């Protein structure tokens, strides 16, 4: 079935396997009664169950919590946080500021984009190695056609988050996975290739851990959506508590204009 018939078959009804609620009665979440079966679930565990339909051990949930916690920086200079803070300073609402800041976090050079590409790299590298290719050969091919995401950082090549996350993974007994080990091997090979600035970054480490937990790229992508969220409310709040409009006020002279000089509009009606 396709074309208008396909659309017609879906008119006016929601057919779903993920859940529904009947106000006053019950709610179902991915095949489980939410209140009977999940009422005491950890919120992140529920979030992951919603994404994957799978349940996770307490150790895995703790590690995934850590991935979010360790990168929650309430620094209003960072672009996504700045959006939340500007919303506060402009006296917009918390939801508008935080939603916009989360949307901005799905970026190409940080946040959602590199994480997604890094897990894609590790999963493909893992398959290549399983089929007998050396990791170095796979990386050679990869570097010919594209970047290796998960390595290199624009401001400082040393990522201060990694020792803390690696330590957490070790404490939870989750540091022996194929992709996590591979992440360090890739860093060594990049060094041998003469690319010392391409040290592992946060996207690389969390992507390798997520690959070991069995997340697909799309599942990992959705897991990342609120990753920076905890750092954003303080930025909104502090900006909202200060006098309105005082976050990064820009006087006319602080704009570097590089365009065409002053000229007369072509058809001025007297």
């Amino acid at each position, binding site marked *: 079935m396709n074309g208008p018939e396909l659309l017609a078959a879906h008119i006016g009804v929601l*057919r779903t396997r993920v859940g529904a609620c009947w106000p006053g009665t019950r709610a*179902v979440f*991915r095949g489980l*009664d939410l209140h009977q079966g999940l009422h005491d679930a950890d919120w992140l565990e529920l979030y992951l169950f919603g994404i994957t339909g799978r349940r996770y051990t307490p150790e895995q949930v703790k590690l995934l919590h850590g991935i979010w916690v360790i990168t929650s920086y309430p620094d209003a200079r960072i672009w996504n946080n700045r959006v939340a803070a500007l919303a506060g300073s402009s006296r*917009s609402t918390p939801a508008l500021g935080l939603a916009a800041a989360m949307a901005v976090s799905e970026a190409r050079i940080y946040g959602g984009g590199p994480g997604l590409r890094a897990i894609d790299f590790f999963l493909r590298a893992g398959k290549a190695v399983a089929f007998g290719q050396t990791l170095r050969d796979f990386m050679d091919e990869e570097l010919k056609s594209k970047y290796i995401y998960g390595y290199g950082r624009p401001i400082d090549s040393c990522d201060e988050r990694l020792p803390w996350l690696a330590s957490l993974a070790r404490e939870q007994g989750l540091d022996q996975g194929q992709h996590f080990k591979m992440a360090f091997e890739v860093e060594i090979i990049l060094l041998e290739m003469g690319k010392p600035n391409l040290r592992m970054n946060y996207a690389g480490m969390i992507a390798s851990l997520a690959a070991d937990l069995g997340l697909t790229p799309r599942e990992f992508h959705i897991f990342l959506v609120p990753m920076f969220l905890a750092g954003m409310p303080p930025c909104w709040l502090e900006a909202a508590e200060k006098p309105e409009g005082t976050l990064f006020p820009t006087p006319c002279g602080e704009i570097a204009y590089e365009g065409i000089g002053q000229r007369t*509009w072509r058809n*001025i009606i007297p």
Partner: protein
Amino acid sequence: MSTDKIHTRIWREEPEPDNPFATRAAFCRGYDVYGQMVGNARWVEMLALLFRDELPAATELDMLEALAVALANPGPRDASVHAAMCGSVGGSSAAASLIAALSVGAGRFRGARDVYDAMIAWDTCGTDLDAWNTYSRLDTRSDFVDTWPRREHPPGFDPHGVSTATSVCQLLETLARIGATPRLSWLTSQRWQLEKIIELPLDVSGVAAAAFADLGFNPNEGEMLYLLLRLPGAAAHALEQEGYGYKQFPFYPVELEDDPAARELP
């Protein structure tokens, strides 16, 4: 990495002598906005000037304005407008309704990303039917992993269409008549052949993509303009539904296909 100034080729402001934050005069690409443009310039001229150093020719401005009229309201059946109405019926903020329209209207099905993809297709295929034939059969499963979901249909064409909608044909013919630009002219003469190759009818997003490309916009600009130009209808329908109230807004029945209550039955 950082710089303490915002750099721009678009906008310059002169401050009042007594306040560096108050605008005495604003210049867009060198033109005095409040002193000369306001009252003399068309809105579409301002729009074009924000994206270009120089104003387009009169026919190009007419074409852009005609396209803006066509795109202004996707109508309440459109997913982006539906999303905006979902905001307003619950009493969400005006911005939330427009964010909803932007987010839903950004996608690869009838959204701005479809226009972006279609403009990439125009860059790749131009007015070469063979190139379109090859492009439409590319296996997108090998596309570079991206934050956007994988493309599921040739961009600019209606995956659920049977024949080209009259409204799409009218838009194409009108824009081609106004602008007589290369892609729109070719599309007008070759539409039937192209649709035969693609095996789908042209959609509004495909016409918009050809028009934006003919007007010299790049795919990023076309995507942004498509998002922008479709917002007025979302705003109007959101406000209208707020007036009707949620009791007159559909809340569809559900068929739960994995119901624990059903499993518990003997």
